[in-house]
């Protein structure tokens, strides 16, 4: 009753919809970085949308199943292969005991979500099966998968052949536009720097993981001069250590913006120029290094409209799969 890891891929971990409620002691929410893809993968194989599945980054794992299950792969375009034969993404397919699931090269996006009927049945940690790698918490032994790991599978029965049509999936734009509500310590930079920040095209840096995404290529920010407050530290980008929102855009030394994601460090001493809106968090999960991206300023009202639209798109997809 398990799935065996033959090869782990680049960085594959068990995730679900996360464990909110512990950020005040530094434990982030976690969970699938692309929550839409996480929920849909589970629904395609007949699971609860918050069941645990595998999140694979840039490169897929090779898995062997010791029981018959239904599998679906969503998120980035990472083509699944069953015993060497290609299968479609966003569509559930049957797997027999002894079958091997591997993956072709990534054709789009950055992260694939591999759901198995019954869900990955690792123990709950603080109410979630998500792997928090920095804190060695949850998932399979609190870490990314290694060759030889065996993951238990829960009870469940899926139906093969269910799929989500392309028009119900989320569209990716190019260059990617990340909508952001300016604020928090926005007032620390000059007007010209703020204007340039939104005008310039940035590029995803190789340092892009579950904690956060770093961007390069724009002009360093100019700060408004001040005497640094007591306890803040000497760099103009330093603040008295404070909480970091999910999606917050910090700019250490004013050079390379970092957008914090689901495994965010919960606080620190760098100023933030604003926060990427909740509706665009999934989009970040699917950005590959070197992808051009722009930050687009929005108001709180626009952020809330975008959130409602995102919720509606998810509801349409879930309704389609429930039908």
């Amino acid at each position, binding site marked *: 009753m398990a799935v065996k890891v033959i090869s782990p891929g680049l960085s594959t971990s068990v995730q679900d919809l996360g464990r909110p409620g512990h950020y005040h002691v530094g434990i982030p929410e976690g969970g699938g970085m692309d929550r839409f893809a996480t929920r849909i993968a589970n629904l395609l194989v007949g699971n609860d949308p918050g069941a645990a599945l595998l999140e694979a980054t840039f490169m897929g794992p090779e898995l062997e199943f010791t029981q018959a299950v239904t599998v679906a792969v969503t998120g980035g375009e990472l083509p699944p292969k069953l015993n060497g034969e290609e299968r479609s993404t966003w569509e559930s397919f049957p797997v027999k005991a002894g079958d091997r699931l591997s993956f072709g090269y990534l054709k789009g996006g950055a992260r694939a979500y591999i759901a198995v009927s019954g869900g990955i049945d690792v123990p709950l940690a603080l109410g979630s099966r998500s792997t928090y790698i920095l804190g060695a918490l949850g998932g399979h032994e609190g870490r990314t998968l290694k060759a030889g790991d065996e993951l238990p599978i829960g009870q469940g029965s899926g139906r093969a052949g269910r799929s989500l049509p392309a028009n119900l999936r989320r569209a990716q734009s190019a260059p990617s536009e990340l909508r*952001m509500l300016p604020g928090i310590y926005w007032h620390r930079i000059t007007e010209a720097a703020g204007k340039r920040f939104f005008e310039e095209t940035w590029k995803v840096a190789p340092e892009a993981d579950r904690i956060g995404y770093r961007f390069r290529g724009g002009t360093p920010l100019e700060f408004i001069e001040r005497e640094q407050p007591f306890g*803040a530290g000497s760099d103009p980008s330093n603040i008295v250590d404070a909480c970091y929102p999910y999606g917050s855009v910090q700019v250490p030394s004013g050079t390379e913006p970092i957008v914090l994601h689901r495994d965010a460090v919960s606080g620190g001493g760098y100023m933030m120029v604003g926060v990427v809106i909740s509706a665009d968090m999934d989009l970040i999960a699917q950005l590959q290094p070197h992808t051009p991206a722009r930050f687009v300023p929005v108001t709180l009202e626009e952020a809330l409209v975008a959130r409602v639209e995102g919720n509606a798109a998810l509801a349409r997809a879930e309704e389609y799969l429930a039908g």
Partner: protein
Amino acid sequence: MSIRFNFGGDEHIFGEVSEEMSLASFFTGLSMTNAVRAANIKGVTEICPANASFQIRFNPDLLAPQDLLAELQSMEEAASKADPVLKTRIIELPVYFQDPWTHETCLRFRERHQDPSSTDLEYSARINGYATVEEFIAAYSGQPWFVSMVGFVAGLPFLYQMVERQKQIQAPKYLRPRTDTPKLTIGHGGCFAAIYSVRGAGGYQMYGVTPAPIYDPARKVRYLSDEMCLFKPGDIVKFKSISRDEYDATFEEIEANRWQPTVRECTFSLTDFNRDIYGTNAKLMELINGR
């Protein structure tokens, strides 16, 4: 003093009590977060106090951002006038200063430091006006510290020493962060001490290590079986400087899961503290020493 509120995207409200660090600001932030917790507002998902600020996360599908903001603003006056008295606890933490592990790490990353020719301890002692490393350590472990924030990674406390501002120890972070810091390192950046709960990257000056785990995701350590993180904002911590022999003995006791830190319930009044800092601290430390 009025709190500067700001929306952090559509899911957070960030409240800055003051730009600079002070115990008064920390207390106002803690009063605010305690009030939010007590109000049990539907849609609030995370309540995080920080050093001189705080953050509330909410689900905007359940709670309109402007409604939460209005509610927080209505709490502000009460919080700033709240009697700054805290029922808390004091925890004694053994620390082996000048240990070989942080020393080795400090030498390995010397080129990222402000002063490659001295150690982190020598540099910090000098810029803070202490003649010797020993005097610096005596100041570091002589007076207690407030846990003014827990975070960055799981269970990592930020500590602010309970002395007047002129006596606060300050040190810059490394010029470029290290890629490695030993687990349970006592570090210092700005005016804050920190204890690295896990091994990893870091930029704080490194002074010593504690043998006592402060985060245990497996909950096997006896004193971390209920809560996997030892520290909460508002805790008071007293470092006890120990020798290599004491470190080894304590380490052995911890391995056998027989050891636990000395923890005493206490009440802290900011008003009393401001009136007599060292007298207040002495009373707190007497609780630990079992008088």
